[in-house]
C-alpha cells in the first residue's frame, strides 16, 4: 500500500566494520525491528478488516465459482469450470455483456460530452449559475432506489408524466411503452442514467475548469483564437486529466450497474435491460445457485480488474506519475 515503513535502504551491507560501528549497526537494526513492529501494529486493525471483509470473500467467491453450491453450508459438489462454460453459453449473460458495451458506448458518446457542454456553459458568467449547478447536481444526490421508483411512475404507459407532457404539447405519437417495451427499454434506461449521473461528471469538469489558469486562455485570445479554438486547443488538453478520471468512473459504473435496473425493471421485459449484476442477483438470491452466481461475479470482477489495470497502465499513467509511490527511483 505504502512504502513509508519499508526498511531504510540507506544502510549498506556491514562488511568488516570496526567494533564500534558494529555496535551502532546492531542498535540500528534493533530500531529497525521496532519500526517494523510499530508499522505492523498500526496497520493490523485495517489489515485484518481488509482481509476479512474484502480479500477473503473475494477469494471465497473464486473458490465457490468452481462448485455447484446452493449458498448454505460449505460448497462440496466440485464441478471445475462448468459454471463458466455454462455462463458463456447463456444467451442472457452474453446479452448482459452486449448491453454493458452499449451503455459504456452511449455514456462516452452522449452523456459525458453533454456533461462537458453544461460544465463549460455554467463556467461562464451567467445569472444564477450557482442555482443551475445545484439543480443539475441534485439528481446525483438522490438515491438510486428513489430515482427508480420515481421514473417508474414518470414513464408509466398512458398514466405517467412523460406521456401526459408529450400529449399536452401534441406529441402523443412519441409516447410509447418506455420501460415496458423490449425495444425502448434500454434507451429509456439510458435517459434516466444520464439524468442521474451527468451532474456528477459536470461537477468534476467544473472543478477542473476552475483550476485552469486564466492566463492561457487570455494569451490565446490575444493571439486571435476564436472560441472553438480556445476550447479545443487550450481548455480541452488542460482538462484531460479530469476527463480521463471521469471516463474511468463512468465505465466502471456501467459495468456494475444494478440498483436502478433492479428497482425499475428487474432486468425485464424478457431480460432486455438485464445487467451482469442483476443476473448475479437472480441466480444468487432468487434461484439459490450461489456457485453460478459466484462465477458471474468473478467474470465481472475480471472485467473490472482488466479494464482498471489497462486503463491505469495506458491512459492514466501520466496523471498517476508521482501520485502513487512506486519502487522506481527508491534508494537513490
Amino acid at each position, binding site marked *: 500500500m505504502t512504502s513509508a515503513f519499508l526498511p531504510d535502504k540507506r544502510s549498506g551491507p556491514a562488511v568488516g566494520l570496526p567494533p564500534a560501528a558494529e555496535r551502532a549497526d546492531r542498535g540500528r537494526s534493533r530500531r529497525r525491528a521496532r519500526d517494523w513492529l510499530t508499522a505492523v501494529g498500526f496497520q493490523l486493525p485495517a489489515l485484518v478488516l481488509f482481509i476479512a471483509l*474484502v480479500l477473503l470473500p473475494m477469494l471465497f467467491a473464486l473458490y465457490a465459482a468452481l462448485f455447484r453450491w446452493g449458498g448454505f453450508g460449505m460448497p462440496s459438489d466440485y464441478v471445475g469450470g462448468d459454471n463458466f462454460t455454462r455462463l458463456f453459453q447463456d444467451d442472457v449473460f452474453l446479452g448482459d455483456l452486449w448491453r454493458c458495451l452499449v451503455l459504456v458506448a452511449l455514456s462516452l458518446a452522449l452523456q459525458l460530452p453533454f456533461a462537458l457542454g453544461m460544465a463549460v456553459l455554467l463556467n461562464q458568467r451567467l445569472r444564477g449559475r450557482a442555482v443551475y449547478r445545484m439543480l443539475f447536481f441534485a439528481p446525483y444526490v438522490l438515491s438510486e432506489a428513489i430515482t427508480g421508483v420515481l421514473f417508474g*411512475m414518470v414513464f408509466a404507459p398512458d398514466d*405517467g408524466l412523460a406521456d401526459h407532457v408529450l400529449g399536452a404539447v401534441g406529441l402523443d405519437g412519441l409516447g410509447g411503452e418506455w420501460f*415496458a*417495451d*423490449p425495444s425502448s427499454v434500454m434507451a429509456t434506461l439510458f435517459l434516466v442514467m444520464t439524468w442521474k449521473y451527468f451532474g456528477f461528471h459536470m461537477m468534476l469538469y467544473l472543478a477542473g475548469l476552475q483550476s485552469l489558469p486564466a492566463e492561457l486562455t487570455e494569451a490565446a485570445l490575444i493571439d486571435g483564437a476564436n472560441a472553438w479554438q480556445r476550447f479545443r486547443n487550450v481548455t480541452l488538453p488542460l482538462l484531460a486529466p479530469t476527463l480521463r478520471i471521469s471516463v474511468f*468512473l463512468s465505465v466502471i459504473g456501467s459495468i456494475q450497474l444494478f440498483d436502478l435496473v433492479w428497482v425499475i425493471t428487474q432486468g425485464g421485459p424478457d431480460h432486455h435491460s438485464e445487467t451482469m449484476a442483476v443476473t448475479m442477483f437472480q441466480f444468487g438470491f432468487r434461484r439459490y445457485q450461489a456457485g453460478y452466481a459466484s462465477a458471474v461475479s468473478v467474470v465481472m470482477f475480471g472485467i*473490472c*480488474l482488466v479494464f482498471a489495470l489497462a486503463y491505469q497502465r495506458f491512459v492514466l499513467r501520466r496523471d*498517476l506519475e508521482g501520485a502513487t509511490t512506486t519502487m522506481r527511483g527508491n534508494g537513490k
Partner: protein
Amino acid sequence: MGDPALSRRGFLAASVAGLGATALSGCGGGSDGGSSSGTTTIEWWNISTTEPTRTVWAGLARKFEAQNPKVKIKIVQLENDAYKSKMTALTASGKLPDIFHTWGGGVLKQQVDAGLVEDLTDGTGSWADGLLPVAKEPYLLDGKAYGIPFDIGMIGFWYNRTLFGKAGIGAPPTTWSGFLEAVTRLKSSGVTPLALAGKEKWPGMYYWAYLAMRTAGVGALRKAADSKDFTGAGFVDAGRHLKELVTLQPFQKGFLGAAYSTPTGQAATVGNGRAAMELMGQWAPVVEADAGKGLGANLGFFPFPEVEGGEGKLTEVFGGGGGHALRSGAPQAAVDFLKFFATETTDRELVRKTGVLPVVPAAESVLTDPNLKAVQTQLKAATGFQLYLDQAYAPAVGQEVNDSVAALIAGSKSPEQVAQSITGAAEEAQ
C-alpha cells in the same frame, strides 16, 4: 485507482460469502425445549410479524398457557424472507424449532427426508380428520401428514361484473375456448380483458401452471418435477394454449413493465375498472382496493376454465396456505397446541380477526365477505390440488418456470422451448 473497483466487487463477493456465514451462525443457535421444574417450554416459530395477526396469535398463545399451566410458549417471529433463510440454515444444522411455520411441498419434503419432522398422522388423526381436506394437501407426503393447516387459499379469475355485462357475457366461461371467446368479446367492446404484472413474472406463471393442470392432469406437475421431465405433450400444449391467449393481445398497455401492487400495477388496473379480469389468489380483492379503488360488490370470482380434451377438471385447484409442523421428538404439549390452534373456537377467531379462510368447516359461518365465500365454496368442492410452484419446486426450477413463461408471453420463447428450459433447470437443480 483500482480501489473503487476492488472494494465494490469485494462488497458483492462479501454478500455471497455472507450467505455462508448465515449458515454457520445458524449451526450454533439450536432451540432447546428444555423442561425445568415441571414446566415445558415450547418454541413457536412463525412469520406473523404484521398486525393484527401478531397480536391475535400472541393472545392465543397466552390463552393456551392459561389452559395448560405447565406449558410455556416462546414465540419467535421472523419476517418471511429472513425466516426462509434461517430455516434453511437450521435444516442444515439438523435441529428445527418445536413448532414451525411451513408451506408444505418441496421444502417440507427436504426436512422430512432429513428426518427432522415429526410424523403427525397418528398423533393428530383423531381431530385433524375434520379439517378441510384440500387445506391438508400441502403437508401430505407419501400419505403421511407432517403439518396442520391454519390457512388455505387458491388462484382463480377475479372479474368485473359491469364490464362483463357491457360485453354481453352472461355467465363466466367454464371452458378455455369459452374463455378465449369472452376475451375477444371484451376486446371488441373496447375493454382491456386482462391485467398482468409482466415485470414480476409470477402472475404470468399462474396461467401456465393452471393450463398444465388442465391439459396434463392434476398430478402431472408433481410427477414432472420428480422425473425432471417437463417435455410431455401436456406441458407443450399448456404453452400452446397460453400462446393462443397471448395472440389475442388481451393484456393492458405496457403490461410487460407493470408491477403487481403498485398504483399503476395489475391489481390497481382491475380495481380501477380499466381491465376486466385478473388471475390471482384470494387476497386479490384486498390488494385491488388498496392499490386502486376496488370494485366492491361488482367483483366476481370464477375458477380457471377446463381445457377441452384435457385430463384436468374444473374442480382441481392451484393454491396454497400456511401450516405448522413439529420437529421430530417435539414434546406432547406441542401436539396439544396444534390441536388447540385447529379448534373451531380458535379458527373462528382467526377468520374473523386475521382474514384467513377457515380450515375448520364449521368456522365458515363467520365468513361474511361474498368474494371469500365464493373462494371457500370452490375449495370445499375441490377434487384435486396443486401447491404453488415456488413452494412445490426447488427455487431454481420455480424461477425458471416464471422466467420461461414470461418469455413465452413476451414472444421470445416457443411452447417447446419453455418445456425444454424448465426440464434443463430441473436436471441442473437435482
